């Protein structure tokens, strides 16, 4: 079970780092605002993007078949994977058949979701993450803490030590430019010798049987172009009808993610060049269940830009790892309990329901509303602790019954006034640890109103 509040408290023990984390991610949100200001029709684009995704999801069956048909015609090899195990096995089979023991990969949250790295390493296949942030967390043997900025939780010093250990950079160096060059030189060797490359997919175009991959470092392209075998891992929700709809999303994606007008590379992979083999693995892994559940299907509109994560005041002050799930922040707090309520029931409560996530979302997922509804589901599933249930039971008794409410209200507030402060403010009191209680008025509004009516 994930204890978000406990993890958040641990994160905040290093106060200066917690502050830095908050400021840095807020800066990304600010850059997003600046980029958005340049698009007059921003709100209209969000409407459109949302409608296109809704339409595609409502007709997903047909679009998937259309995509498959057109991709086959283009010469892709198509695989279907119902779950993460099958996804990983398909990749293992492709690599084993060609006796490949090292594969380069460019950022894919889906392969993170499927645990591909561990799966392949266990079977003797070396997998090299080629995006800088991903490479850093891979060397550190930790998962990414953010879906767009995977190593945002690490300091320069730590990265310098890590690179010194693994990539033989100069000891004690923390210069980002130097460290990037070291990583780049090392990655070039892997990229040039790559026999196989794996990447994620940003958009699948049903009408063209092609995929679009958006990156900033260009390593996906370098890997794909050097390798003889390319494998694209694609969640079935990544589909859109086609070329006509694509620009709507390209306008929104990078601006929402990092505040750039567009990613440095927007690669359209249409058909394999002669002599090369291109695979697409279409992965369900719980998506169809979410869609057919009819309740939260809209979460599948997500284009993984991370804007909801950057804007979330709770994420910025608790860090990506506090969620204990591949994807942090509001979107992670929605996806995780849909996957496993028992383990992740605390996440829908790791929000003030401030609604910033829903307003920032480029495809208009009503994230905070879903978080609210998931709280109902969490309680229905019996995941509330005894202590919390008892507290809420008492609260319910007091708030509902007028007489009890008046009596307890009266005595409670009086009690608060005269109890010695050590009894009111102790470590079990979540409110009073850092906050004072409000001053106690002489009479409640109700009492005043009664007298006011008498006075006429």
């Amino acid at each position: 079970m994930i204890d978000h509040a406990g993890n958040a408290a641990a994160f905040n023990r290093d106060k200066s780092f917690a502050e830095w984390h908050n400021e840095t991610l807020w800066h990304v949100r600010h850059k997003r605002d600046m980029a958005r200001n340049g698009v007059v029709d921003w709100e209209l684009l969000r409407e459109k993007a949302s409608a296109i995704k809704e339409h595609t999801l409502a007709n997903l069956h047909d679009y998937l078949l259309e995509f498959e048909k057109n991709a086959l015609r283009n010469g892709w090899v198509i695989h279907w994977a119902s779950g993460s195990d099958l996804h990983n096995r398909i990749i293992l089979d492709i690599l084993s058949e060609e006796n490949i023991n090292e594969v380069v990969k460019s950022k894919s949250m889906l392969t993170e979701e499927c645990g591909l790295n561990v799966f392949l390493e266990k079977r003797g296949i070396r997998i090299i993450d080629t995006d800088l942030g991903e490479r850093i967390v891979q060397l550190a043997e930790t998962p990414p803490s953010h879906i767009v900025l995977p190593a945002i939780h690490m300091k320069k010093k730590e990265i310098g030590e890590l690179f010194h250990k693994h990539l033989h950079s100069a000891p004690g160096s923390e210069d980002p430019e130097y460290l990037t060059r070291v990583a780049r030189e090392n990655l070039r060797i892997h990229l040039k010798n790559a026999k196989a490359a794996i990447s994620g997919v940003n958009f699948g175009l049903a009408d063209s049987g092609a995929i679009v991959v958006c990156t900033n470092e260009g390593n996906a392209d370098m890997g794909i172009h050097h390798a003889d075998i390319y494998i694209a891992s694609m969640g079935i929700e990544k589909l859109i009808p086609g070329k006509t709809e694509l620009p709507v999303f390209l306008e929104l994606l990078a601006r929402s993610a990092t505040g750039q007008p567009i990613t440095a590379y927007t690669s359209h992979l249409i058909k394999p060049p002669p002599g090369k083999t291109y695979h697409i693995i279409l992965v369900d892994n719980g998506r169809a269940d979410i869609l057919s559940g009819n309740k939260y299907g809209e979460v599948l509109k997500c284009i993984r830009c991370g804007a909801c994560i950057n804007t979330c005041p709770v994420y910025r002050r608790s860090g990506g790892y506090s969620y204990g799930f591949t994807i942090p922040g509001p979107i992670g707090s929605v996806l995780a309990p849909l996957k496993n309520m028992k383990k992740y029931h605390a996440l829908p409560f790791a929000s003030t329901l401030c609604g910033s996530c829903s307003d920032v979302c480029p495809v208009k997922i009503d994230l905070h509303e879903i978080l609210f509804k998931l709280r109902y589901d969490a309680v229905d599933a019996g995941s509330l602790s005894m202590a919390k249930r008892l507290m809420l039971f008492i609260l319910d008794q007091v708030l509902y019954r007028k007489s009890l409410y008046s009596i307890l209200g009266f005595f409670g507030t009086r009690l608060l006034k005269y109890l010695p402060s050590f009894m009111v403010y102790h470590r079990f009191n979540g409110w009073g640890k850092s906050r004072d209680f409000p001053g106690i008025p002489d009479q409640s509004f109700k009492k005043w109103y009664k007298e006011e009516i008498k006075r006429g």
Partner: protein
Amino acid sequence: MSRDRIRVGLFIPCYIDQFYPQVGKAVYRFLKKLNLDLEYPMDQTCCGQPLANSGMRKESEKYAVKFWKLFSGFDYVVCPSASCVLHVREHFPDLPEDGMEGSFRGKTLEFVEFIHDILRLEKIEASFPHKVALIHGCHGLRGLRLESSSELNVSYFSKNMELLRQVRGIRMVTYDREDECCGFGGSFSVFEETVSVRMGLDKLKSLTACGAEYVTGNDMSCLMHLEGLSHRQHLGLKFIHIAEILNGAV
């Protein structure tokens, strides 16, 4: 319809009743001056939001039934808390077996919303010669859309500011990250204490830096959280509900 024919039911949230009766009084007096047919049903307690937000669907539904019974006869229900109003409007269940199908939801309005949208008051008679910072409670901001939020690419608007600007002598001050959440969040403030407090202290940092004497807003609950932190830190900031300012409190 002339104003004395408009039947208004006053809903004063539980914590305002107990801790901040002066807010209820300000609303009552303000509306009374306008000759509305005003009534405060004595049997009211709470809207049930604290339970609903904690995931207690079943327990929270009976509050909706009670609310409906007490308030269905009014033309409007007015409440000085954006958060409670949002709960009534968006999270009250439809319970047809109790004759409750939700048309009354739209008639439940937050105080500023009511005087701005329904009464369309053109002149506020009040004086408040102080430096004031407005906090934008999330449920009023992004829920009821009392103001434009910074995430959206829409023209600026603020029903709060339209009213506050008319108050004599008031000097409104702006500050950093104005519409970031203050961290209250109901039971979040207790169950996620660390982050809640961190958010509140960050908000107070901006509020003290902008030189405000008073902090105001549509939700006393956000103000209560900030007041509690500020008091503990001896920051000297004063907290006041927007209804108190509009009613002419000095």
